[in-house]
């Protein structure tokens, strides 16, 4: 995706009103996307009692430090041991661990499938391919039982590794490897590069952009995991931010005192900040990865 400005020639004066219309729609759309988060931000800067009395706030108040401070550093949860910082760290471990694991596993598998002639290639391909048939949500209960029986609940391994059992990354790299000119591997073979050398010297450096793109997508995917962490981690020290949302909701549903609206909104904002920032800053990579991975 290159420049978004279309160069369609048009008569300047005749279409002015239609341009105003176009912009209005885009502004409305942008507002629809922005407004909830803006409200969360403004509300997070107010005192709970005030919010309870007057509803969500449309402008900034004075309690932003307190709410964010509490969200990050106050010990919460049932055991009062987990802080926002712990959850933030766990979220990063999950997001980065998942993304890196995914990239390594799927690059290796895709390399084997695309660049080798061996008997089980088709079998391996279909074995991996079949995983797109069953999202984790569908097989959640038996998956949980398997993890439990291996004793991986409440561990980073149990949190990350089962999420790696899918084909998405493998397909992405398979597509990309197939688009790498055939002659490159031939030239490398004539240059005396074996399979390992070719992979390390040529294919990996060549895939840099693709790796970055898939890293962003997988990081966001891992960071945003909800159901799996909810089941696997009962130990609050392993909670991620997104998993923490569930605690907030639970407290909110059960609690009789005034809920901590501001703090909840602050936590929601912290939970969305890193993935949103990455997607915005590395927009072109991310879009490239997204559009090409799903084709």
């Amino acid at each position, binding site marked *: 995706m290159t420049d*978004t400005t*279309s160069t*369609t020639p048009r008569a300047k004066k005749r279409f002015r009103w*239609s341009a105003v219309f*176009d*912009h209005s729609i*885009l502004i409305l*759309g*942008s507002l629809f*996307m922005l407004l*909830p988060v803006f*409200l*969360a931000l403004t509300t997070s800067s107010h005192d709970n009692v005030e919010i*309870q009395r*007057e*509803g*969500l706030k449309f402008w900034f108040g004075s309690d932003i430090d307190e709410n964010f401070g509490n969200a990050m550093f106050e010990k919460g949860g049932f055991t009062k041991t987990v802080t926002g910082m712990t959850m933030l760290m766990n979220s990063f471990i999950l997001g980065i661990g998942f993304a890196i694991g995914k990239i390594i*596993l799927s690059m290796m*598998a895709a390399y084997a*499938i695309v*660049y*080798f*002639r*061996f008997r*089980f*290639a088709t079998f391996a391909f279909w*074995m*991996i391919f079949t*995983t797109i*048939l069953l*999202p984790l*949500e*569908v*097989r959640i*209960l*038996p998956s949980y039982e398997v993890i439990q029986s291996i004793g991986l609940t409440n561990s980073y391994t149990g949190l990350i590794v089962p999420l*790696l*059992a899918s084909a998405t990354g493998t397909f992405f790299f398979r597509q990309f490897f197939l688009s790498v000119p*055939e002659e490159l*591997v031939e030239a490398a*073979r004539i240059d005396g590069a074996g*399979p390992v050398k*070719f992979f390390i010297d040529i294919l990996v450096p060549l895939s840099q952009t693709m790796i970055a793109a898939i890293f962003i997508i997988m990081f966001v995917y891992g*960071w*945003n995991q*909800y*159901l799996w962490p909810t089941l696997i981690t009962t130990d609050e020290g392993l909670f991620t931010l*997104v998993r923490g*949302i569930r605690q907030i*909701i639970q407290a909110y549903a*059960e609690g009789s005192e005034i809920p901590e609206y501001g703090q909840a*909104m602050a936590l929601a904002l912290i939970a*969305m900040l890193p*993935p*949103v920032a990455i*997607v*915005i800053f590395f*927009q072109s990579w991310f879009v490239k990865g*997204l559009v090409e991975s*799903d084709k």
Partner: protein
Amino acid sequence: MKRAGFANYWLPILLLLPQLTIIAVFFYWPAFNAVQSSFYLQDPFGFGSQFVGFENYADLFASKEYAKVARFTLLFTLLVTATSLATALLLAVKADKVLRGARTYKTLLMWVYAVAPPVAGLMGVMLFDQNIGSVTDLFAWFGYDYRLGVNYWDTAFAMIIVSVWIQIPVNFIFFLSGLQSIPQHVREAAMIDNPSGFGRFWQITFPLLAPTAFFLLIINITYALFDTFGIIDTLVKNNPASNPMTLVYKVFVDGFRGNDMGGSSAQSVVLMVLVLALTIFQFRLLERRIHYT
């Protein structure tokens, strides 16, 4: 496969081993367990299980509640898919058309991709809250008493809006990239052949977007069926009793809350078949190549 592939024997197996091991342990084993336990009736207290054949399935299809959840899932999927696709298409067409600020609009319309569904759900809970929610205020202004979590359809409304909100960015990105891959010379030829912008869209642009649209249709159905879990779980606030839910959420509720292993597994298998059907449908479409190159 490349024509000049390496003919090494052990290396490809070694390369595939980690991926295949993880898939075998965390995919095939659980999937197999799901199919197996869907034919068993499990004692809720963990004292063994009994083979019951298709009884779990029979119970499932006879269940009024299951039928209700299935109907809601269908409606929910249709509404979420249609609304988010239509909105995203409109926005993408406009974003492709404007000359100024195209980049800014693009960023503003896609960043929500990175927001986790439950985080969006939490914001939804606040916005639609009975006491403090702005949307609730808006409804009250129109004279409607909106009650999230109490009124079935009020909750459904919030679920749909939040789900659409999250899904617009993906659709927008794909539509925009689809529009931008329409070659300039085709646009120019259309400009010469058809003076009406509206006509050009429906006769030239839209057919050329059809492959993208079909692909997105499948993506959106899958999304509405499975990925909305976090939204539903937050919006029903841990209290699914009188609230709408989707099939996937019911698998979770029955399995973890109701301890109905067999029933939950049978539901899983039904969903597997559904996904299988969707995938086959998708591949048939791909085979027929709804594209024009």
